[in-house]
């Protein structure tokens, strides 16, 4: 069980949306994790510095929250490590061919009313829901 956190989720979502708007306003870029990361893998894109800076900021942020406030960030990963490794591989191949993930398609693309992002978001939300159903209710969970 995880607790329903309406206020924190609304606040967090607002900041995610705000970061998408700011990255477009300042850098003219889509705040999509897949696209940003892909440019950092070989052959490394010539515009790698802004990409690396964005990733660094995203990693440092939770550290700052933990260091500067009493705000706890709950984290629980209930799946065995080998399956996490497999899921990473599957997700990596998927987001590359699908040209984006939850941030790029689900937030930025949907906000631009892109038909590709709408299709991608509907599909990955559906297959994620089906996968969780099969793992937990058909196969009996991990």
């Amino acid at each position, binding site marked *: 069980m*995880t607790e329903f*956190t309406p206020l*924190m*989720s609304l606040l*967090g*979502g607002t*900041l995610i*949306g*705000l970061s*998408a708007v700011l*990255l*477009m306003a*300042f*850098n*003219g*870029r889509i705040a*999509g*994790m*897949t696209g940003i*990361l892909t440019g950092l*893998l070989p052959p490394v894109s010539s*515009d790698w510095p802004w990409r690396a*800076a*964005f990733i*660094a*900021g*995203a*990693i*440092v942020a*939770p*550290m700052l929250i933990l260091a500067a406030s009493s705000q706890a960030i709950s*984290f629980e*990963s209930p*799946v065995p490590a080998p399956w*996490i*490794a497999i*899921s*990473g*591989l*599957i*997700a*990596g*191949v*998927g*987001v*590359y*061919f*699908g040209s984006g993930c939850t941030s790029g398609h*689900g*937030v930025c693309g949907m*906000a*631009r009313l892109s*038909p*590709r992002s709408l299709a*991608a*978001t509907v599909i990955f939300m559906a297959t*994620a829901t089906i996968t969780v*159903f099969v793992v*937990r*209710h058909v196969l009996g969970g991990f």
Partner: protein
Amino acid sequence: MQRTISAGLIGLVFGTGIALSGMANPAKVLNFFDIAGTWDPSLALVMVSALTVAAIGYRFVLRRDKPIVETRFHLPTGRKLDMPLLAGSAIFGVGWGISGFCPGGAIPALGLGEPTAWIFVGTMLAGIAAARTIRMGLQARATQTA
């Protein structure tokens, strides 16, 4: 330099949003998808609020001639619903549903010092690199035979 600094600061906003929203917590993500079981609707609110802010903000931003520290807007132009998009997205959802990690959630989770996040990000980068090699190989072969 300006581009790097602004991207770094905006990355902080992104990471803060992910961490506070619960998107960096795989158990919460899995429960969001578990409608038939221990359903946690929180992430629907994350999506709705992020989308609302982005949709309204983009309307104002994209009216400008160019971004503030960059010479032009870099926007995807494709409109075709092709097989890589549809199949790739379906495959991504399966990976997301197995562990509850997605790229945007896992990167900030690295900052929490969680080993499972490092495992996910490691194999995810390998997956992206492998897929890229495959696609470049296919494209090179297509140009040779054309």
